[in-house]
């Protein structure tokens, strides 16, 4: 299969195993985002694809070719580094054309490709500037430009936006998505920021401690997280977890915990009945709380002690507690509402998640 394949890849430094066994198939032209907390092995994985890091075991394929032991330049890849790694002594044009010059591309073609990339990235006026005379956002775009003039088969990005301020970051997110459409190339993008992952990815790979926790579309990983880690990592603010036990049976099944009794939704009943004697963790996303009950009756009423209500426009963010355990909620009450206080709130039970408390796997 064309694209990029990692097959049972292992990475260890001495006796420290960073990546125990990783397999992943990336389709041609796909935009895959690898996301996970800092130190989980994302960069290491990307650098093994680039050939900057050796693999301890396993194989890597790019476009049906085994490149496990191939040098970076034989892999048809381009890479954007977190620190941009622009050559300080070369101007923007020099930075962008470096790879082409090394490859002996004819002068006219180099000029034309650099020109086209510069237009695409709005760098035309800066071609003869040195990196030190550019703003952070411009440097970032030069780093992008340096990779796109290559017209490589795979583009690798290692947290390319993390040094930008919030506003620029969201602009660049959009531009990157557009760039992917234009270039129609395979892209592997590494980040610790789940919002970047959700907004740009065709598919998200969620990693923790060197192990892939789940692979799926942004919708998949948000609506059907495979385990507690994925559920807590994807979504902002993150999901609330409360310990509980299952009581009753059949359609009368409920989760009981400190300060709450919540009926298990129809969707969850079959799997939950099968797990009845296990201890569970209840997962509730903050955005699935509301200040008023809905007519369809699929809401559970909960008494929240609200510590702080933060105004965020049309909704409010509540830092509260339920039966002594901290809980967060965002409730949509319109821009003119008074700060919300303690009292009864309603949780959409259709949106509940249940996890096995011991293994953390979703039921």
């Amino acid at each position, binding site marked *: 299969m064309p694209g990029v394949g990692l097959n049972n890849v292992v990475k260890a430094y001495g006796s420290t195993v960073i990546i125990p066994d990783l397999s992943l198939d990336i389709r041609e032209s796909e935009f895959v985002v690898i996301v996970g907390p800092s130190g989980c092995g994302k960069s290491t994985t990307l650098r093994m694809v680039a050939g900057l890091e050796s693999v301890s075991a396993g194989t890597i394929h790019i476009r049906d070719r085994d490149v496990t032991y191939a040098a970076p330049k034989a892999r048809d890849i381009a890479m954007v580094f977190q*620190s941009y*790694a622009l050559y*300080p002594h070369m101007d923007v044009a020099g930075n962008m054309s470096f790879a082409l010059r090394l490859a002996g591309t004819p002068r006219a073609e180099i000029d034309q490709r650099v020109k086209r990339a510069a237009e695409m990235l709005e760098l035309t006026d800066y071609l003869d500037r040195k990196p030190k005379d550019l703003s952070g956002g411009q440097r970032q775009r030069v780093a992008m430009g340096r990779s796109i003039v290559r017209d490589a088969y795979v583009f690798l990005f290692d947290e390319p936006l993390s040094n930008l301020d919030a506003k620029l970051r969201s602009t660049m997110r959009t531009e990157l998505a557009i760039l992917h459409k234009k270039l129609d190339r395979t892209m592997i993008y590494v980040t610790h920021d789940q919002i970047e992952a959700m907004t740009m990815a065709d598919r998200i790979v969620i990693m923790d401690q060197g192990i892939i926790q789940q692979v799926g579309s942004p919708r998949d990983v948000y609506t059907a997280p495979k385990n507690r880690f994925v559920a807590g990592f994807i979504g902002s603010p993150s999901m609330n977890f409360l310990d509980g036990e299952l009581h009753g049976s059949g359609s009368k099944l409920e989760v009981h915990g400190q300060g709450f009794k919540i009926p298990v939704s129809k969707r969850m009943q079959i799997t939950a009945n099968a797990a009845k004697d296990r201890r569970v963790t209840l997962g509730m996303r903050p955005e699935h709380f509301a200040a008023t009950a809905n007519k369809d009756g699929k809401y559970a009423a909960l008494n929240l002690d609200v510590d702080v209500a933060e105004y965020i426009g049309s909704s409010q963010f509540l830092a509260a507690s339920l039966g002594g355990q901290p809980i967060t909620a965002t409730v949509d009450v319109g821009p003119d509402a008074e700060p919300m206080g303690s009292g009864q709130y309603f949780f959409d039970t259709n949106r509940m998640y249940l996890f096995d408390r011991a293994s953390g796997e979703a039921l």
Partner: protein
Amino acid sequence: MSERIAARSLNNPWRVAGHYFFLVLLALICLTPIWVMISTSLKDQITIFDGKPIWFFFVPTIENYQDVMGAGKFDKYLWNSIIVATVSTFLTLLLGGLCAYSLARAEFKGRRFVANATLLVRMVPPAVLAVPAFSMVLAFNLRSDLMVLIFFYTALNLPFAIWLLFGFYKQIPVELEEAAIVDGASPLQVFFKVLLPLMKSGYAVAGIFTFRIAWNEFVLALLLTGRNTRTLPVAVSGYLTDTGVEWGRIMAMGTLIVIPPLLFTFFAARQIIAGMTAGAVKG
């Protein structure tokens, strides 16, 4: 804070005067010996030994220069000095650069200690090494070979060069090399097209120090050279004769000796500035 203090002190005329006084004093301390050397080299023997020293008003003569440069082997000694200083500087930069790069990039325990410990070797004064060096040279029967001096100067200068270049290499992020590798550069291309342009100032500074030390060194050169392999500092000592010290000629030769390192330093200093404007290595 410190800027405010500096600004306030610049408003006070007494302080400004004090600053300038000190600067002029320092300049005098530095320049006086040089003036004495140059002026003495332009005086004849009688003027030099004239009761009280004459600072400015005397009839200059180039007699001393003619003597010194005309005397048999000046050309030879100059050539020896040039060969010894340039070759040992080249070797020091080449080997020191390789060591420094390895120390900066390789991961092993105590790496920083090794890098700094190289400086300790530098604390040993060359004179202490003179006797062991001399017996080594005798043992290998290498006296009167320029290679000997080149070898010892390289060994003497390496520690400092390594330590200095280590600091420069540490400042270049590894990602720059990795970016170049991904861009398709071979190891040599990474070095010549990415590292070297950024290391210009480092190599220039190390080169200036190394060249100057090799050019001026006296004790080892005196012991380890023969009739045909003398360097200029050793040749100068030839004018300390049984019949008297020929100050005029010594100073003339001294003045001549200063010129090449000055030229070298001006040339190398240009690279320091070139290296600095090559720019912010960090993004």
